[in-house]
């Protein structure tokens, strides 16, 4: 039984200009202890997918249809109270910007202990001890002193470590990481990745790692799902998708990552920009930017299985293995 299973999930936002389909039929699953990289540009709906899972979509947004199964249990339709018991305890989330996720006027220990005591009846001393241990595990030096500090006394990387420590407090089965390293510089990024990877694999925690950075998932994820305009367009194991991308969007993404082998060449870029979710092209949403698009693409491509363990939503899969450089 997979830890998380999304089936045909739709999340819509009612705006004055019409219904905005941020998530438009996403189906994916994350196995126990598995790391799934959910990749896509800004506005592709990947963060909204993450927030939908723990029911943190606020009006005018709503989960309009689909199913979310967590450890076999259906989460769609649960009351706020039932969801609250899951949040933080069984499903944790790490946000993008560590400068914003901690409350600036509350001490670190307050913010950690309240997370413990929200789910377990433990004494203050016990909660404090566990908060301190959690800080130590994510590599924060002298955790005892740091506990009584305020967020502004930490650097961005340290704050993200605190957020990770909070996420790990209850040993959740699933952590949703919403671009947690995007706001950090590269060396800190590598440290944070190493910490999360180590702790998650030690505890068998499943990770849904949301990012736009392919180089981050390449070293971290077991599988990749590529999202475009609210849909998963391609998925499969990391090696398979990165070595033989079949969707032209994935190829474009990979081609636009700088690498050592292409020195001196101009980087590829995908022409145009993500279509507005209010006004998506009919059929394949990528066809207006796709080099292989033709008349067939004006109808919606179905999800197919071109190879074992791989899924693809395209009429004209790219055949040559090497990405044009």
């Amino acid at each position, binding site marked *: 039984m997979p830890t998380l299973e999304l089936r045909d999930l739709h999340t819509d936002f009612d705006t004055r200009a019409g219904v905005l389909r941020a998530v438009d039929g996403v189906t994916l699953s994350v196995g126990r202890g598995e790391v799934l990289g959910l990749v896509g540009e800004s506005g592709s709906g990947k963060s909204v997918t993450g927030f939908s899972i723990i029911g943190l979509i606020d009006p005018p947004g709503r989960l309009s249809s689909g199913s979310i199964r967590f450890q076999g249990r259906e989460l769609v339709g649960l009351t706020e109270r039932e969801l609250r018991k899951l949040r933080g305890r069984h499903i944790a989330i790490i*946000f993008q910007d560590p400068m914003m996720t901690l409350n600036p006027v509350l001490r670190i220990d307050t913010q950690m202990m309240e997370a413990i005591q929200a789910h377990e009846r433990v004494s203050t001393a016990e909660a404090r001890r566990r908060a301190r241990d959690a800080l130590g595990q994510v590599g924060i030096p002298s955790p005892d002193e740091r506990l009584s500090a305020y967020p502004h006394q930490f650097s961005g990387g340290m704050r993200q470590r605190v957020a990770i420590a909070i996420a790990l407090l209850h040993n959740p089965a699933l952590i949703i990481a919403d671009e947690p390293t995007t706001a950090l510089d590269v060396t800190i990024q590598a440290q944070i990745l190493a910490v999360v990877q180590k702790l998650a694999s030690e505890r068998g925690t499943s990770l849904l790692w949301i990012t736009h950075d392919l180089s981050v998932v390449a070293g971290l994820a077991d599988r990749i799902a590529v999202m475009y305009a609210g849909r998963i367009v391609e998925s499969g194991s990391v090696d398979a998708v990165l070595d033989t991308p079949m969707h032209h969007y994935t190829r474009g993404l990979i081609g636009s990552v700088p690498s050592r082998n292409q020195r001196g060449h101009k980087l590829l870029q995908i022409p145009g920009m993500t279509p507005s979710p209010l006004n998506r092209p009919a059929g394949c949403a990528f066809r207006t930017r796709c080099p292989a698009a033709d008349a067939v693409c004006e109808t919606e491509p179905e999800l197919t299985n071109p190879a074992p363990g791989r899924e693809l939503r395209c009429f004209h899969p790219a055949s040559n293995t090497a990405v044009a450089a």
Partner: protein
Amino acid sequence: MLLLLAMSLIVFVSIYAIGDPVEILVSPQATIKEIEQTRVALGLDQPLWRQYLLFLGHALQGDLGRSFIFHQPALSLVFSRFGATLELALSALLLSTMLGISMGLVAALRAGDWIGRTIMAASIAGLSLPTFWVGTLLVMFFGIWLGWLPAIGRGEVATFLGVTSSLFTRDGLAHVILPASTLALGNTALIIRLTRSGAVEALQSDYVRFARAKGLSPTRIVGVHVLKSVLIPLTTIVGLEFGGLVAFSVVTETIYAWPGMGKLIVDSIGVLDRPVIVAYLMMVALLFVVINLVVDLLYRALDPRVGLRP
């Protein structure tokens, strides 16, 4: 101190410009000689600069002159009424912060629906209605038509822990309700609006979303995470407004015949009792300085980002 010095100079000169108290003090039948005698007795025959220097010299020794009317030291006269005003201002402050913060939070949480809109509409009314009009209306309604509450004066006083106040007796409390509500009205409206805008901002912040993702209850999120962020800007305003409550309780005290400093100053201005006016204004200036200091200290206690060293 510099502020107080400047304040004293301005007050002194402007009062000099208002009019000659001697003409009011002496009886209409007084002869020119009697008028001159009064003038000399009060020290008003001296040129202005001399009067000011004399005043300053005495003020440094804690003597702000004697009232022309009551023949008591002006400062102790003002002080004797200070308690009543403080009592009224504190009641109004308590009322407006409690009511303002709670209604502001409700307005923020129910921003979209009719409850939120009603509160906001009421707060606009509260800000724009003039005190004297609301005061008169309240007296008429609760004091005269319904007869539920005493309309004028201060109630019985009692002494508790060495403080004498009418807030410790039932009668006193009944007397303070109407004037305190009147005085609190504008402040309540202001605090509602500030609390609401701060809370709306906090509710949309990432840290509130993160707090929800931790599985915290809404009570804890609003009561700790949102409230604490709101309290910081609010402290400054409430502090400054408290000074305003004390200083400008003049209108309210006059309506309700509340025997406080405001009533005293109105009466003193009527008879041009210069030392009392000066003493009152100096006292208010001092109060503002003290309040500013307290607010700064409170601010540091509340907001960890404000350091003790610059």
